[in-house]
């Protein structure tokens, strides 16, 4: 019997599990995919928003600003790439300057620190590549850029080191109330838990309806992106938003923590909440809109397109609360969900307390994570790292300078990956301009070796994504 079962290991479930793992509780995280951060947490704008977007007085406003505040310390302690680069909401007309002023007012009410309204000249001073047509902007210095899947991994791995358990490939198929606890039927067997936390992202509506009346509807919404080569990375120094409209926050151009440039997203309602395909129309829309902010963008330097699905709902608010007895919804978490994640986790603890769960802190919970990122070391540190472990001297991913040592570290991390993309999320292999063309076969080899598996069982990504289908013809014996 678990004290708490958390459904879903995106950034919300992972942050909740991390918070819960600091207490003397038996915590189990159930994830439908074969790895963590497989939904919106891995395919988004990678932004920690300042918090001027949500309406004052909403949970979204409060949790965004608090989550933003918490991000810096958490990322430092958990070794997650994060930079508080600041954001600009660009206005291209007097009408849009009106929106900028409204956002400023909202931001002030929400407690966003350091906001300023800038002129077009000031914007171009800060952003030399910004369009001549920009007439002004809202500057929010507290906005940041983050590696979103590593944020998720950092929470989940640290939770596991604190004793939380995680079960992958364990989609929840049904939930029954049995006396004083819940019985959860999952693809990986039945589970009993006294309390349940629903952090199932695009599935959070379905999970909610397993125990309670329908109160909201998830409206999956796809956003498509370009990830650009590092040679384009300098085109934006801040997160460059356009004025929000009814379709969302608009297309942004922003640096990434990896030194690339991210461009997107569009917003399109979709029926299949798990299909993250790109479309010709979506990509063309993103190109066109992004060029308004930064006319010099060169899309020939794109290294990857991707798409993510937002867990939007028919409500203009996160669906956070007690859905049924001892059952907490962290549902309908759309943007700014990533920014709010650690604050949502605190909210989750409060709600569980209200439900009567007793929280006894652990004496010395793990709250830090160390990670070797070879290319970030100085020359002496590189020397020392290789001396200690010669595998740090063997570069496997040329584009990103990722060593075999880092790959082996990733494979033996608290939540071991089973796929090339799993290693990519942990070590950064294949993130570069050749997109794993060179290192893919080598990483596959290392995965098979370290996991003692047949290379044909190594996956690209999710279940079924086998890379190798058979062995080639062998020599015929005479």
């Amino acid at each position: 019997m678990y004290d708490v079962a958390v459904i879903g290991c995106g950034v919300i479930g992972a942050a909740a599990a991390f918070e819960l793992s600091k207490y003397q509780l038996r915590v189990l995280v159930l994830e439908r995919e074969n790895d963590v951060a497989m939904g919106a947490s891995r395919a988004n704008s990678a932004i920690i928003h300042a918090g001027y977007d949500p309406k004052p007085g909403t949970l979204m406003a409060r949790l965004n600003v608090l989550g933003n505040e918490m991000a810096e310390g958490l990322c430092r302690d958990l070794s997650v790439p994060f930079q508080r680069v600041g954001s600009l909401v660009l206005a291209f007309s007097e009408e849009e300057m009106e929106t900028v002023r409204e956002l400023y007012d909202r931001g002030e009410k929400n407690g966003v620190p350091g906001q300023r309204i800038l002129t077009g000249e000031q914007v171009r001073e800060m952003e030399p590549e910004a369009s001549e047509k920009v007439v002004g902007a809202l500057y929010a210095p507290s906005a940041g850029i983050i590696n979103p899947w590593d944020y998720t991994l950092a929470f989940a791995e640290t939770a596991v080191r604190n004793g939380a358990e995680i079960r992958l490939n364990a989609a929840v198929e049904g939930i029954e109330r049995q006396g004083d606890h819940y019985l959860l039927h999952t693809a990986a067997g039945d589970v009993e838990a006294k309390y349940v936390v629903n952090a199932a992202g695009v599935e959070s509506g379905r999970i909610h309806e397993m125990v309670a009346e329908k109160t909201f509807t998830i409206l999956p919404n796809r956003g498509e992106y370009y990830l650009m080569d590092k040679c384009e990375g300098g085109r934006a120094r801040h997160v460059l938003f356009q004025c929000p409209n009814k379709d969302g926050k608009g297309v942004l151009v922003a640096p990434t923590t990896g030194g690339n440039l991210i461009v997107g997203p569009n917003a399109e309602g979709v029926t299949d909440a798990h299909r993250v395909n790109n479309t010709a129309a979506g990509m063309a829309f993103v190109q066109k809109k992004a060029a308004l902010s930064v006319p010099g963008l060169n899309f020939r330097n794109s290294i990857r397109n991707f798409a993510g699905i937002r867990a939007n709902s028919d409500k203009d608010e996160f669906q956070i609360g007690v859905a049924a007895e001892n059952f907490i919804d962290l549902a309908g978490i759309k943007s700014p969900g990533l920014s709010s994640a650690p604050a949502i986790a605190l909210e989750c603890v409060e709600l569980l307390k209200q439900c009567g769960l007793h929280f006894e802190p652990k004496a010395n919970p793990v709250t830090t994570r160390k990670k070797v990122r070879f290319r970030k070391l100085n020359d002496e540190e590189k020397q020392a790292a290789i001396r200690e472990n010669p595998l740090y001297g063997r570069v496997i991913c040329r584009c990103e300078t990722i060593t075999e040592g880092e790959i082996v570290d990733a494979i033996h991390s608290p939540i071991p990956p089973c796929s090339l993309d799993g290693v990519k999320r942990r070590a950064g292999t294949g993130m570069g301009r050749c997109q794993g063309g060179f290192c893919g076969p080598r990483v596959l080899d290392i995965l098979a070796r370290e996991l003692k598996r047949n290379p044909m069982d190594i996956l690209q990504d999710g279940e079924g994504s086998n890379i190798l289908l058979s062995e080639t013809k062998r020599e015929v014996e005479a």
Partner: protein
Amino acid sequence: MTYDLIVVGGGPAGLAAANSAWQKGLKHILIVERDKELGGILNQCIHNGFGLHRFKEELTGPEYAGRFIDMLKDTGVEVMTDAMVLEINREHEVHVISAEKGYQVLQAKSVVLAMGCRERTRGAIAIPGDRPAGVFTAGSAQRYLNMEGYMVGKRVVILGSGDIGLIMARRMTLEGAKVLACVEVMPYSGGLMRNIVQCLQDWDIPLYLSHTITDIVATNGRVSHVTVSKVDEGRNPVPGSEMEFDCDTVLLSVGLIPENELTRAAGIEMDGRTNGAVVYENMETSVPGIFACGNVVHVHDLVDYVSAESERAGAAAADYVLGAPADEKALNLVNGNGVSYTVPQKIRPGRVAKAADVFFRVRQIFGNSVIEVRDGDNVLASYKREHMAPGEMEHILIPRVLLDKAQSDTVTVSAREA
């Protein structure tokens, strides 16, 4: 200790450069190779057809590399494998890491850049659709098959008609896969004619020119089918022309990009058309004493030409170390009508012995045609061709005596139908 020459990369370019520098008298030469053995990408090219120009016989890739590796055995050239160069600077310092020797900063009198090239990816051409397993660059698939011994698919569509894709069409067929189509967005193939014949036509694999993949659809994480559409002259898909292919694999052979991160970081002048360094007639870059050769400068069709170019680079590095002539006046080569680039981009006539080798590619297909080298309106030299195509690199020799006649400081290379 200071090396006379450090060669970055132990593929065909690096091997030939090191060997010729040794023949020219350099004694302290080091090749740094990131793989576990020398030979570079030739090691996975197990088909034959290499060496027809150089050795007058058909060799496989490993055999061709083996010839050069054998030549090195009789020299004192040092080799460091499983080692990666992280940085090079204008002072000829080379930062290297390896599991065996850790992090080292090595000093050289000259450097030859021979890092080769990499394949363009799906991201660079923004193919719509799902992003499942089963989409490979042709070279990665080649590695899985020929080096690791695994098949990556059973039913294959190839996008792009670059040489590696063509070679893989035949290779996959020989291994029992069904190659359904080779799809090329341009109205002509990007590969060599001999590969079109030997790798597609001989196996009844259809080549769809002016077509592209407009959707990739997955089932359970692996490619399940693709949509192929005809494209108009602006390369935009033509609605209503869609064809569907049930396949589990897409191979991409959509171009090669010289791998010049080290070059750029060293502040060496680059050519936006080749994506390689701007080089002089002897393959010297804008930084004195740093040379470049092979696919890191421009993408070649034939390794034989890589070897020849690299031998010139190696010899020039030796000349530089053993006493470089002073800098002299240089002519800029300009891309005229029909020419997309030239290598070299600059020629110092004073350093040309008899004639300067100039390589270039044309922008479109030419029938009976003339290549002209002009100084203003004055035609310095002209060359006849029966056929030219973007997929086939052209080579001309411009005699020193003609270069000396140039009045201005630019010389234009152009092509026209005869």
